[in-house]
């Protein structure tokens, strides 16, 4: 049968189980749109290609499966770059397909031509420019295989218009790509050594990262923690693996970790680092990170082992089989002294929270939201102070309940990603916790949200500033404020109404908590504006480059440790 390149693309996507694509049409990808119009694949129109990329990310982050975004050539492709770079930093399986000018025009500065191949090179796991329709038959399955195998990551496929229109005869379709089997720990010697190190440890800690979530072994990790009495810290990407309210959970470590968390790391003698990359936000100064500990580092990506921190035992493997081996062979262990010490630290060095009476204090607000929202909720945030407060204080119960931009820290991530999450999980309530700065960056997606009537509740923690910049200028730049959008604020509730989304302003509400609950519980999209004290800071804070022990607790540098 005769198929055009565009029809081949759509057919191969269908065979990979793709049931929705987010994109924006343009001259260079109209043949693909024509093929899509005959397909069962649902098309979601974004209002900016960056929005399309993040909507696809939302689908991928919450399902763990590859998701597809589609853009035209030139500005369409360049607008996708931020979302692809973001997926690259957080290891998200994103497939970006872009139209390109016809092959004969490439390199002539044609209308809407950009070197998409060159632009995507450094921010993808791999990328291609397609030279013939026949190439698509091997390329598209390969793109999917790469995106979801080993350490997941984004891939980009640039398809010139003539290739989309080229017709060829196809008799057999290639098998859809499956995830390849990850590196499995092959030398049992390493596993035995891990077992031995665990048996010898007196004060072990788990450091749980995004790799545990990708691996799907969160239950085994939690079981091992309980069985062997190993308290756990989470990196930003690892939140949700251990239920937030469990005694063994020490919360997020690093730059904005609670004092007790960073103090426990100072005292531990064995760090089991699972699916982490020792990012500077987590470790502080790596040379002074966990000074007393031996380190077991397990990661599926060999290049991460011994990159930042040398490990006494590094294992290149999917986390799951390593955890299973420990679970099967380590037996049960009680560590009453270590657990007592952990409980002591938690009690005496908690997250600092003055102003318990203020219902709009960030921690109080987040607590209220978690109590008043429907139980089945997923939390997506934007970037800034609100993001850090949420990471510190929201009680996550399961993996992929927490969706946030970690490695790239992209403002504007929140709303479109929340849309993607809601499309993928229609029975959940999606809480999009955002800031007044971040929300403006992809505001146009309110129209997309209104169009699909999704269960997304945007909570704007509005302090009328770029809060985290203001914080840094206060602490490190002599309080010389510039570029923080000082005390300007849009009337977000009215703006939402104008775009077809219910808007609620708690600042002018007679009974804010009742209005908050009503807005969270009612079906459909809503935006809730909440006034936040502009001077509130995210604390503790480890200054960039300092050690995790040099935490700023109350606007003055205090050396932690001891009583």
């Amino acid at each position, binding site marked *: 049968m005769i198929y055009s390149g565009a029809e081949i693309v759509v057919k191969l996507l269908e065979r990979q189980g793709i049931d929705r694509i987010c994109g924006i049409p343009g001259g260079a990808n109209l043949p693909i749109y024509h093929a899509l119009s005959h397909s069962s694949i649902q098309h979601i129109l974004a209002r900016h290609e960056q929005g399309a990329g993040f909507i696809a990310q939302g689908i991928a982050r919450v399902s763990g499966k590859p998701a597809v975004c589609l853009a035209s050539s030139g500005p369409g492709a360049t607008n996708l770059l931020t979302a692809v770079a973001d997926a690259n930093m957080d290891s998200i399986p994103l497939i970006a397909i872009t139209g390109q000018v016809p092959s004969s025009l490439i390199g002539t500065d044609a209308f809407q031509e950009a070197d998409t191949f060159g632009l995507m*090179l450094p921010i993808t*796991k*791999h990328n*291609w420019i397609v030279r013939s329709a026949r190439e698509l038959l091997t390329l598209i399955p390969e793109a999917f295989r790469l995106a979801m195998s080993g350490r997941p990551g984004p891939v980009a496929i640039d398809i010139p218009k003539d290739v989309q229109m080229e017709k060829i005869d196809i008799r057999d379709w290639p098998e859809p790509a499956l995830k390849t089997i990850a590196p499995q720990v092959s030398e049992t010697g390493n596993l035995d050594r891990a077992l031995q190190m665990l048996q010898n440890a007196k004060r072990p800690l788990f450091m749980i990262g995004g790799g545990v979530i990708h691996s799907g072994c969160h239950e085994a990790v939690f079981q091992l923690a309980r069985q062997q009495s190993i308290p756990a810290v989470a990196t930003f990407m690892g939140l949700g693996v251990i239920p937030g309210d469990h005694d063994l959970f020490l919360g997020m470590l690093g730059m904005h970790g609670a004092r007790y968390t960073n103090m426990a790391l100072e005292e531990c003698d064995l760090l089991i680092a699972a699916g982490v990359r020792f990012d500077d936000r987590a470790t502080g100064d790596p040379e002074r990170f966990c000074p007393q500990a031996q380190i077991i580092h397990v990661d599926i*990506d*060999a*290049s991460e082992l011994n990159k930042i921190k040398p490990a006494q035992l590094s294992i290149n493997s999917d986390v799951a089989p390593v955890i299973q081996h420990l679970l099967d062979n380590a037996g049960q262990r009680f560590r009453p002294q270590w657990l007592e010490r952990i409980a002591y630290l938690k009690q005496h060095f908690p997250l600092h929270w003055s102003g318990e009476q203020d219902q709009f204090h960030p921690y109080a607000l987040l607590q209220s939201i978690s109590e008043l929202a429907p139980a089945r909720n997923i939390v997506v945030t934007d970037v800034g102070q609100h993001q850090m407060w949420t990471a510190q204080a929201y009680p996550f119960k399961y993996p992929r309940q927490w969706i946030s931009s970690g490695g790239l820290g992209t403002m504007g991530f929140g709303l479109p990603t929340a849309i993607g999450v809601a499309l993928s999980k229609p029975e959940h309530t999606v809480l999009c916790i955002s800031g007044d700065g971040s929300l403006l960056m992809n505001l146009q997606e309110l129209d997309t949200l209104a169009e699909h009537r999704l269960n997304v509740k945007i909570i704007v923690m509005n302090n009328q500033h770029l809060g985290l910049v203001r914080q840094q200028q206060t602490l490190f730049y002599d309080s010389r404020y510039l570029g923080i959008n000082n005390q300007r604020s849009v009337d977000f509730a009215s703006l939402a109404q104008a775009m077809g989304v219910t808007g609620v302003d708690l600042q002018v509400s007679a009974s804010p908590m009742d209005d908050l609950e009503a807005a969270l519980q009612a079906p459909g999209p809503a935006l809730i504006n909440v006034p936040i004290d502009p001077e509130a800071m995210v604390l503790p804070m480890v200054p960039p480059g300092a050690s995790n022990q040099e935490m700023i607790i109350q606007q003055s540098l205090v050396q932690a440790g001891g009583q």
Partner: protein
Amino acid sequence: MTSDIITSNSVLQVTVKNHAGVLSHICGLFARRAYSIEGIISVPQGDTSIMQVYLLVQENGKLDQVMRQTQKLVDVISVKRRDQDVSLFQSVSAQLADSVATL
């Protein structure tokens, strides 16, 4: 005289699939990892589906990490350290010096 020009002492032999853009992938990786490429010799091999790329680099303690990152590139088949191949660069350098001299 030509050995003075070549001061770096490490060579990586990178065997790659000869796909469009593979050299861009390699050079882009080294650039964004801030690892200087002092010299590059690239020749197709066999039926030209494979290419040998020799990279002249300075050993500065980060070489192991750079080799691991290069191995991750999809079109890279293998990365080997072959410091003895500095002679390749010296030889090319000498030939270029000779051809300039005869102009």
